[in-house]
């Protein structure tokens, strides 16, 4: 579904991604782990062009998204994104947050979007918060709304950028549960995370990144129990204890 060829990204003189080659299959759940500053978030943000790659190519369903004539807005409709800091729209209610994009982009009528929003809120366990404003929600609730908002666009691919890093420990479980059920429904997902347990249990594949390159990419059972690369071993020995 996604093919990434020789992806480079620099911010000025700072080379963050130094040639990434990867592919993500339809329905696959891929976790991206690695030390901070390894480029995992930048990698994720390149996939929906929140960062413009300096070099290299990204193909979604065999269509290049980096081509000059690529329609970025149309691409983003197919790719949902969940942020570390939720980024809910504070001047809109929970339900309005979810309904906004499908209605404004003419994909649904207001009525359809409302039905959809109610269904999604039920799915993430927040049906009673439909008319609340984001400021009255806890971090975990905000993140679940953010997931519902992304799902309202019926994306083919979901990107998660450290979705639980800004949460209090007791909130993490609820968000991970929602993501887990999403994975079980067959959603294609790319997750940048520090939750090693989650990466191990839910992913079909884990990518370990360090220094702007992919060091190792394989099934979680293998990566976590018998990593081949020294850098992977060092990193895991620090985080898994």
């Amino acid at each position, binding site marked *: 579904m996604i093919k990434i060829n020789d992806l480079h990204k620099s911010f000025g003189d700072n080379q963050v991604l130094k040639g990434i080659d990867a592919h993500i299959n339809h329905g696959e759940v891929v976790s991206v782990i690695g030390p901070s500053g390894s480029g995992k978030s930048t990698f994720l943000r390149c996939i929906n062009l929140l960062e413009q790659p300096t070099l290299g190519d990204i193909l979604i369903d065999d269509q290049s998204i980096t081509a000059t004539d690529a329609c970025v*807005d149309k691409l983003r*409709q197919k790719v949902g*994104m969940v942020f570390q800091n939720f*980024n809910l729209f504070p*001047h809109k209610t929970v339900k309005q947050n979810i309904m906004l994009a499908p209605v404004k982009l003419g994909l649904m009528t207001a009525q359809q979007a409302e039905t959809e929003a109610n269904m999604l809120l039920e799915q993430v366990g927040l049906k009673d918060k439909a008319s609340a404003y984001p400021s009255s929600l806890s971090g975990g609730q905000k993140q679940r709304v953010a997931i519902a*908002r992304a799902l309202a666009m019926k994306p083919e691919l979901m990107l998660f950028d450290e979705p639980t890093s800004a949460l209090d420990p007791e909130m993490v479980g609820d968000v991970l549960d929602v993501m887990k059920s999403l994975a079980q429904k067959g959603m294609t997902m790319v997750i940048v995370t520090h939750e090693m347990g989650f990466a191990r249990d839910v992913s079909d594949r884990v990518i370990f990144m360090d220094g702007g390159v992919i060091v190792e990419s394989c099934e979680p059972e293998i990566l976590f129990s018998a990593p081949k690369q020294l850098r992977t071993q060092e990193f895991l020995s620090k985080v898994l204890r």
Partner: protein
Amino acid sequence: MIDAINASLFTPIGEDGLIGIYLILNGLKVTLIVTFFAMIIGSILGVATTLLKMSPKWYLSWPAHFYVSVIRGTPVVIQLVILYFIVLASFDVDKITAAIIAFGLNSGAYISEIIRAGIQAVDKGQTEAARSLGLSHWSTMKEIILPQAIKKILPSLGNEFIVLLKETAVIGFIGGVDLMRAGEIIRSRTFEDSVPLLTCALIYLLLTYIFTFMLSKFETRLKQSD
């Protein structure tokens, strides 16, 4: 004191038999008309200039930057005089209209800077979230950024309108009779300084006070919707 008030405000002054308070009220009317319409023109120009400035196309952003630099770099009184005596000299434009245009142009530049600051104060994540949902640059602006920027902008915008109201006191430079000029006329005819000047000052103070009060009411109402 009472005699001075009577002489400057309530008895006919000069050969045309005008009464001071009548001059003052007419001047006040001019001040309010110019301020009000300049506010409207300034707001429209301000929004338009901000949008042009943010455009990635240089031929749209460059003129907007030029306009703001020129206006911010010169005193409003020079802008007013140049507009009336040079730019509009060959057109049949009355003084009040010229003043409205001049102050509207002036205010527009400052308002555009205020709006820009307000937009930049909205968290970058808001733009990213909206764009990641597939919204275009313009609908992101309209639906997400501007509604949030407005609340941040409002206090500075109110301040700008108060400054504008006070700055119109230079209309006399092109011969328009606003509140300030009315006071000056009374002064020159009655040789009485304190009463006309203090009256003018008091009216300006009262106007800005009322305006500030209305604005704070409005802000409180906006905050309730949070």
